[in-house]
């Protein structure tokens, strides 16, 4: 299996993500430059976190016009796995590969801390190795992580079991106090209807080694690799 990690101008979790695949999971991984337009040979593509184009205008708004995005849309529509983390999630929303929007946190501050998320749906390729209800600990680090969508969209997300992760407390309770940014229904991650595109705000690549305080994140990548 070969994984590609996209570098947009301003991506800053590109190397972190690459490192987990290469040095922790020992998977074939390479970088994809934002002007590339050939995704042949890749089995999965990750849009990493960061501040593509400085987050100017809106987070993800400019990156979604990168040449590579045209190819990624096609790649995803063919059913291949695409995962957007943090800024990557924001780009997927701007590109309309996933529904909804991420608006500034309700506290109007950048927020960096460890959070707990609950696996709500383990029926996607990204969560198939995880038990439903399992609680994962990993960091968030974002200014615009407040998931918003209109009522109809939220309802269809629920009906189609597209909500994959919800912010919760350490015991797995999905409570308002455990919501770090004001997201509707404590949404931390969603998939498309087909289940091959995941967007999530927390950073699994920052929770993939013991020395960093949590290895929960690596479980998501392992699921993706089918290594479970």
């Amino acid at each position, binding site marked *: 299996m070969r994984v590609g990690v996209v570098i947009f*101008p301003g991506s*800053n979790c590109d190397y972190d993500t690459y490192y987990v695949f290469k040095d922790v999971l020992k998977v074939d991984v390479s970088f994809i430059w934002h002007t590339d337009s050939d995704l042949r040979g890749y089995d999965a593509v990750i849009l990493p*976190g960061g*501040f593509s184009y*400085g987050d100017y205008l809106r987070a993800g708004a400019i990156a979604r016009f990168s040449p590579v995005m045209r190819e990624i849309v096609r790649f995803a529509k063919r059913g291949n796995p695409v995962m957007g983390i943090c800024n990557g999630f924001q780009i997927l929303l701007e590109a309309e590969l996933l529904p909804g929007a991420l608006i500034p946190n309700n506290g109007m501050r950048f927020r*960096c801390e460890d959070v707990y998320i609950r696996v709500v749906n383990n029926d996607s390729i990204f969560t198939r190795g995880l038990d439903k209800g399992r609680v994962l600990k990993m960091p968030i*680090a974002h200014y615009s992580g407040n998931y918003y969508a209109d009522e109809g969209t939220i309802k269809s997300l629920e009906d189609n079991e597209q909500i994959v992760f919800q912010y919760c407390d350490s015991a797995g309770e999905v409570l308002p106090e455990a919501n770090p940014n004001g997201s509707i229904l404590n949404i931390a991650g969603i998939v498309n209807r087909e289940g091959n595109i995941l967007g999530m705000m927390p950073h699994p690549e920052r929770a993939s080694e013991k020395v*960093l305080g949590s290895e929960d994140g690596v479980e998501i990548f392992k699921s993706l690799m089918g290594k479970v």
Partner: protein
Amino acid sequence: MEKTKEPEVTLELALEHGLTEEEYRKILEILGRKPNYTELGIFSVMWSEHCSYKNSIAVLKTLPRTGKSLLVKAGEENAGLVDIGDGLAVAFKIESHNHPSAIEPFQGAATGVGGILRDIFTMGARPIASLDSLRFGPLTNPRNKYLFDHVVQGIAHYGNCVGVPTVAGEVYFEECYTGNPLVNVMTVGIVEHEYIVSATAKGEGNAVMIVGSATGRDGIHGATFASEELTEESEYRRPSVQVGDPFTEKLLLEASLELAKKGFLVGMQDMGAAGISCSTSEMSARGKSGMIIDLSKVPLREPGMTPYEIMLSESQERMLVVVKKGFEEETKKIFNKWGLNCVEIGKVTNTQPLEIYMNGEKVGEIPAWHLVLGGGAPVYTRKTKYPSYIEEIRAFDIDEIPEPEDYNEVLLKLISSPNIADKSWVFRQYDYSVMTNTALPPGYGAGVLRIKGTRKALAVKTDGNGRYTYLNPYRGGAIAVAEAARNVVCTGARPLAITNCLNFGNPYDEEIYYQFKNAVHGMGDACRVFDTPVTGGNVSFYNESPDGPIYPTVVVGMLGLIKDIFHITTPWFKNEGDFIILIGNIKGELGGSEYLKVIHGLVKGDAPSIDLEFERRIHDAVLEAIRKGIVNSAIDISDGGLAIALAEACIKNPSGPMGASVYLSGDARNDELLFSECQSCIVVTVREDNLLEMEKIASKNMVPSTTIGRVKGDRRLRINTLIDIDTAVLLREYTAAIPSMMKGG
């Protein structure tokens, strides 16, 4: 293009540029003629305090600046460079951005982060962590609150976007910083030895290139044109505040590191203060070369800029790069790939002068060596006078103050004092986990970063108690080093080297110069004893608010090396039943303490005493025990004394607060036992079966170790019969203090 009419250079104009008459005469002598307006501007910025260190360098030279692991001597390059083995070196430096932050806190702090990042990556090092040492007036004043809030947001805005984690630092609030906040930013980077880049220009015919953002009229100093001539144009005030662009910085960082690996790169330097003037003259002087540059080639943001303006502009996110002749196109390719300007503006020459052209006309010629620190820039030794306030303020008798009746209440007050209370309101706004190296996040003393591809980790910390330095400049300087060293030792690191930021008032005030000189001596003595050479740093004078100068504030940035990530030690109590051991001595020393200030409203007495040799033995003992694997937690005594150290060790456990029962004995008063900020004290916990080993290690290192209590699982902190308190309540007060003061903007 119409030729710009420039003011005639006179002594008066030189004085307006901040030069002295003596300095102006020296310029006439160097050039053998009168400088033109552009040249005068260049001399004035290069000989400014900021670039030349003219009032501090003579004193700074007394600091220990060499050591076996130092790869460059202090001041030789843009930042210090320390060998850490495995073919790796650490580049690190701290710098102040106090005055810009006082005017425009968000951009002032942001561009402070940007400048120090560039100092690191122009050496070829990838920045892996930043730290911030901040000082503000009390949060009860709305302006202070505004400054605090916006400085923190500015740091977050810049550092988060570039993707360098902010992992440690400190924040203090004192009246003296009202209107004159301190914003000192440190960055740490890692470089493989073979890719270290020097800020040197040499090799005749090699290309001089400007890369990064276009040049605008930002931050031009001394632009006090003979003002009566300016009417229409004076409306067009030159902006003195620069706006940072972290996005461009990130691109510049990646492009520079790509370039650093190319054999054709000769040298690279950031354009910070004094922009093109500083980078061209310093790089030339280092290489004993000259340069011919053409300002008409510099990409400009605004039309009609004069040579004076282009030479003095402080537009951010620019660098000067020198590459071997014939590699100009390859260099351009790298920067263009990242969407950045890269333009050749001149050549290196073998002759000494820096020759400046614009539109085919020579607009300046100055021998570079004469402009720079270590070359022809002036050096002054200022007069000192023993400060008149010191005697009075040190005359303090503990019997003047009553002993508190309710120590639980005192402890609660102290733990919610903004200087001690939880700072997560601050660091939660910083991305501290990006780059996936952060093994110990902010809030626990030193920040710890593992080094990928090795078993090693770095511990980094800034420290500096202005109150101590105010009471006793020498001790204050020494303690700043000792405390920073102690903090990295507590994580399991051996202190390696320091960088420093010296924040003082007006150096022409003899009492302030006394503070400066003595604080530097204290710092130097401590560095010699701990074998932590000074790799470089920054001096910020003229920190004065309308009410007077700030406390003399020495901020030390310490670098420590952890040999194996297995040794990483945290400050919180872990297991019920562990023995709590005090390594060091408790003395009755309340001078300058947070207790005196918060509970009795006094800033009095002498700073705590310190025996540097003893302090070093404490470090040795604790490190040895940590490396033996017997230390379950380690925390040092600092602000708030032993009681606060114990309270923090109870409440910092991420899985929830612990308890402890502690018995202290001694002939001091109870408040002295609990709250003296005694130096050279570390509280560790060990399992019962390791008690003997711990004692052995302590006695081998000739330091006292006293078992003072045990860790409890019942969430109560008990000290003698004085304190008996629910640690969950302590935790609540500790975490609520700053957010509640910042509520409602």
